[in-house]
C-alpha cells in the first residue's frame, strides 16, 4: 500500500534533496553565528529523508549506517565534553575557545560573524547534528516501514 507519487513530485523531490541537506548543514555549521545549531540543522536534514520516503515510497536500507552514526555522534559529544576534564578542568569546560586555529578565534561586541570562533561549540554542534540526523531518520524509517508506506530498495 505504499504510494508512489506522480512524476512531477518525484522529480522535484530529487532536485530538492541536495539543497535541503546543504541548508541543514549550513544551519549546523553556522550554529554559533546565526540562529540554528545541531538540533535544528539535524531536523532539517532528517526531513529530507521524509521527503524521499513520501515521494518515492521506497528507500535504501541504511539502518545500520544510521545507527552507527548515531552512536558515534553521541560518543564524540561526550568525549568532546571530556576534553576539558582531561585537561584538568570540569566537564563541559570550553578549553579550545580563543586558542587559535580553526574554531579558535576571538570575537567581541557586534560583528559580522566569523566562522573560526567558538572553541568546542561548533564541534559539538556538528556531532549533535550527526546524532539528530541519524536519530530522526531512524524514527521516520521505522515508522514508515511499520505503516507499510515504504519498500526497501536493493
Amino acid at each position, binding site marked *: 500500500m505504499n504510494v508512489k507519487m506522480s512524476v512531477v513530485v518525484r522529480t522535484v523531490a530529487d532536485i530538492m534533496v541536495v539543497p535541503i541537506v546543504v541548508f541543514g548543514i549550513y544551519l549546523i555549521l553556522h550554529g554559533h553565528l*546565526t540562529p540554528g545549531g545541531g*538540533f535544528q540543522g539535524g531536523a532539517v536534514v532528517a526531513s529530507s529523508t521524509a521527503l524521499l520516503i513520501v515521494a518515492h515510497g521506497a528507500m535504501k536500507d541504511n539502518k545500520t549506517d544510521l545507527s552507527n552514526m548515531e552512536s558515534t555522534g553521541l560518543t564524540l559529544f561526550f568525549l568532546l565534553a571530556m576534553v576539558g576534564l582531561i585537561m584538568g578542568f570540569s566537564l563541559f569546560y570550553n578549553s579550545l575557545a580563543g586558542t587559535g586555529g580553526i574554531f579558535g578565534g576571538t570575537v567581541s561586541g*557586534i*560583528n559580522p560573524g566569523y566562522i573560526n570562533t567558538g572553541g568546542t561549540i561548533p564541534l559539538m554542534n556538528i556531532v549533535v547534528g550527526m546524532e*539528530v540526523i541519524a536519530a*530522526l531518520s531512524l*524514527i521516520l524509517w521505522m515508522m514508515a516501514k511499520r*505503516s507499510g508506506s515504504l519498500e526497501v530498495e536493493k
Partner: protein
Amino acid sequence: MNWFNFFPLIMVVTLVIMGLYVVLFKKNLIKMIMGIAIIQNGANLFLVSLAYREGYVAPIWTSAPATDMVLPTPHALTLTSIVIGVATTALMLSFVIMLKKHYGSINSDDARRCRE
C-alpha cells in the same frame, strides 16, 4: 496596555487546560497523544514568553541592531523540551501502532487487559 500584560500567559494556560481535557475525556489514543502535543506547545510557549523583553532583540551578536537582548536561558530550555517532545511523541505513537497490531483497536476502553 495593562490588559495585555497577561494575555499570552493566559492563552498558555488555556492551551494546557484544553490538552488536559483531551487526555481526560477523549477515548482515542492518537487523539490523546495529540492532546499531549497541545500541552507541549503550551509549555514551550510558556517558557519562551518568560524570556521576552519589550523592544529587545534576539540574543545573537552577529550583526545585531542593538545591544539589549532578550533572556537566553529559556530559549535553551525550550529547545531541549521541543526535542524531548518529539522523542516522546514518536515513542508513544509506536506503542499505539503495536497496540493496534495486538488488540485491533486504538480505543482506550479496549486497552485494559491489565487491570485490578
